[in-house]
């Protein structure tokens, strides 16, 4: 009888451990913490790219040059496309948004909307022409034209043998004067990883 009771308790304990070990565990972690799981491009890489490129683009002397040439008028920038030519799916928006945010926060650079968002703005403006009150209606033809366009590319090199792999990423951003096509700033972030399976 006593033996049966011990057996029952042991069975419950073992099944409890088994269930606990099989259930998924999720833990909130800091976004600044680097956790490498597969060795692929992850949030830490995007953060490192954003930090370095933001520091470089705001610290470069193209802003002062522009201010001097345009009587203190701040440069207006539009974000163009980024070409991902690496071996992984990487969305540049994860670090470009940080750079855009730094433009606005630093008050050194003005930013204008482009792409689909700009289309949506114009569509809204078009809608206002027939639906909004005359006093609140926004007019066409008064947008700020960008002085510079920010474009970029992501490249990678993979060297692997058996269970070892070295992956090298290079993120390039270029700022070009739209009027003259002159490249006024180039920034790059290089990341190398050694992965052992």
């Amino acid at each position, binding site marked *: 009888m006593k033996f049966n009771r011990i057996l029952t308790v042991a069975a419950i304990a073992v099944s409890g451990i088994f269930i606990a070990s099989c259930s998924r565990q999720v833990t909130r972690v800091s976004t600044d913490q680097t956790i490498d799981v597969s060795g692929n491009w992850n949030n830490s890489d995007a953060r490192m790219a954003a930090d370095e490129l933001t520091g470089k683009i705001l610290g470069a002397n193209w802003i002062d040059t522009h201010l001097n040439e345009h009587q203190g008028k701040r440069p207006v920038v539009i974000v163009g496309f980024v070409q991902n030519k690496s071996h992984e799916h990487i969305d540049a*928006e994860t670090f470009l948004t940080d750079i855009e945010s730094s433009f606005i926060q630093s008050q050194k650079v003005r930013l204008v909307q*482009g792409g689909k968002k700009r289309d949506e703005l114009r569509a809204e403006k078009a809608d206002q022409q027939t639906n909004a009150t005359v006093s609140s209606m926004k007019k066409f033809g008064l947008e700020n034209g960008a002085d510079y366009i920010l474009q970029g590319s992501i490249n*990678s090199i993979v060297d692997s043998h058996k269970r070892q792999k070295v992956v090298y990423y290079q993120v390039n951003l270029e700022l070009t004067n739209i009027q003259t096509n002159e490249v006024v700033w180039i920034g790059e972030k290089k990341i190398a990883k050694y992965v052992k399976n």
Partner: protein
Amino acid sequence: MIGLMLLGGLFSGAVKAQETASLVADQNPRYMESQAKYIRIADTLNSLHGVTIQNTYKAYDWYEAKLERRRQNRAWRHEERMNGYYDYSPSWGLYGGYSYSPFLNYGWGNRWGGYYGGRWGGRTSIGIGFGW
């Protein structure tokens, strides 16, 4: 007729003069050709603003390739099972590689049927086997 030609010449001259007059210092006088070209494709190109164009490549990774091969083999075996084939034992095996039934491997030259519970199915063999 002559009047019409004169009027045409006058109009084209006026347009030309207007274009020349609107040029800023050092501007290429043929800039309108380029402008006309890019106005046509501007919407398509500008829709890419802020977009990441995924132009990725597949890098060779020895370990990943090995895992991929395993996955493919597993999927292939699964497909085979679904099709009713079970006999993937090696040809040098104890039972002649295909069937452990000397009875079915002999004489009729085929090994399908549900007689022995579906260990084999759908495949026809030619000749006499060495089952045992």
